[in-house]
């Protein structure tokens, strides 16, 4: 993978200087490459990875499987457009398999999420059925293991 994207994907807060040192490119080059990635929409944004379990009050997350009937000409795009406009919705994926859209939703309480599904998602034109799965715990997200236990280096041999 392009090392610049690899590094930013690991840690978007690396300074230009650090990125320049690690990739062996000048700071100007790195800056213009980042701008280029942004312009092309390869880099879509920079977000903090938050362990929501530790935030009080901690929000509720759910995966909702949506079966829909695709529209003539539009396919799934039309329904996806409408689902992704809803602010409770975190991500929407078109899936191959038993259902069509995977919708990740964030809400304040389970009740909120359930109401959201009943009133706003299932009522959308062309939604055939929904199945709601609540997230109980997150072990790994976006490639980062969410774990507070102290990492122990498994390498016993100290030296040489």
């Amino acid at each position, binding site marked *: 993978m392009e*090392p610049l994207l690899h590094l930013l994907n690991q*840690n978007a807060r690396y300074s230009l200087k*650090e990125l320049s*040192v690690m990739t062996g490119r000048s700071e100007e080059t790195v800056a213009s490459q980042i701008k280029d990635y942004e312009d092309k929409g390869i880099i879509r944004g920079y977000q903090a990875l938050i362990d929501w379990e530790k935030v009080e009050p901690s929000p509720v997350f759910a995966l909702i499987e949506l079966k829909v009937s695709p529209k003539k000409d539009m396919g799934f795009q039309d329904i996806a457009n409408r689902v992704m406009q809803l602010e409770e919705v975190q991500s929407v994926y078109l899936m191959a398999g038993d259902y069509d859209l995977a919708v990740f939703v964030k809400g304040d309480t389970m009740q909120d999420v359930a109401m959201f599904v009943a009133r706003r998602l299932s009522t959308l034109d062309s939604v055939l059925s929904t199945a709601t799965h609540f997230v109980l715990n997150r072990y790994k997200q976006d490639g980062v293991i969410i774990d507070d236990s102290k990492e122990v280096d498994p*390498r016993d041999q*100290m*030296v*040489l």
Partner: protein
Amino acid sequence: MMEQEINQILARLKPSGIRKFFDIANEMEDVISLSIGEPDFQTPWHIRQAAIDAIEKGRTFYSPNAGLLALRQGISDYLKKRFALDYDPKHEIVVTVGASEALDMAIRALLNPGDEVLIVQPSFVCYEPMVEMAYATPVILNTQKENSFKLRLEELEAKFTSKTKMLVLPFPSNPSGAIMTREDLEPIVEFLKDKDILIVTDEIYAELTYNAMGHSSIAQFPQMKDKVIYINGFSKAYAMTGWRIGYACAPRRLLEPILKMHQFAIMCAPTLSQFAAIEALANGDKDIEHMRSEYDLRRRYLVERLNSMGLDCFEPEGAFYVFPDIRSSGLSSEAFCEKLLIDKHVAVVPGNAFGECGEGFIRISYSYSIKHITEALDRMEAFLKSL
């Protein structure tokens, strides 16, 4: 008690001088180490799977003494493709228990008491004891930072005598990260080509070089091929240290005594590890590439940070170590490491552990995550300011 109950040469050999640091480090909480000399990557899964498959099929017997022919064939193909080296899998390759065993076997099988062995330093700490245990005499070739820790012809000429039997050439270098390019090797080859000498070239870090030219081996020179015992292994390139699998390649007349020795001492390298190694050679190129590019990022980061905190650091082009000059601190290597450990709980290795000419330097390993390296360097920077 018998006066000489244990081997007198062994009794005389000094235990590694760095032991005491690790005794201190082990007692401490919150120690952050940059001292380990093995990859932080896990062995790639497909390689581990190959060993699991071998266990499931019950392929747990001895292999031929020289190793599975399929593995020797794989090694032969790999060396040809990767480094343009030509070794016959049937007669010129033996699979060993790590490159360390290959070194020991070559040294013990080929030396006679009183032979002089030229050892380039600073280098891996085991060469000298191995040579001594073979009743031969180590003669040290010093290298310096001014020459980027490369072996220079003048040093070789100065130490070469009528008793010189063997040269141990350890590049890319642990601990300095120095490499020998083709141009660097040329004068050495020119000097040695008509001499009666054997060259043990330890190229365990061959896959980890960071310049555009890649790795050069003295075995690539046709006029040297007949004198060279080429040693490599899977530990560093494929992150397979614990599998203990390496190999020696040499012309048949030299390989036969090495194989004989190996047969007496070891029988064969672990068969399961050999199956894993076959898979590594067949499908591991992209793993090497991935690990190398990760090491390279860390290497650049470390060198820049060390230089900017005032520790002069020549640019290492191989292995996964940097070897900064700490003389500006006014401390000896050991004093520096001990104080750094006690004051800031950071463990690095004093350069003199790798030979006297390593005095004034420390070895820092970058087989750690950037996050880990950053934390250790922040502490080192604070340490330097406190001096």
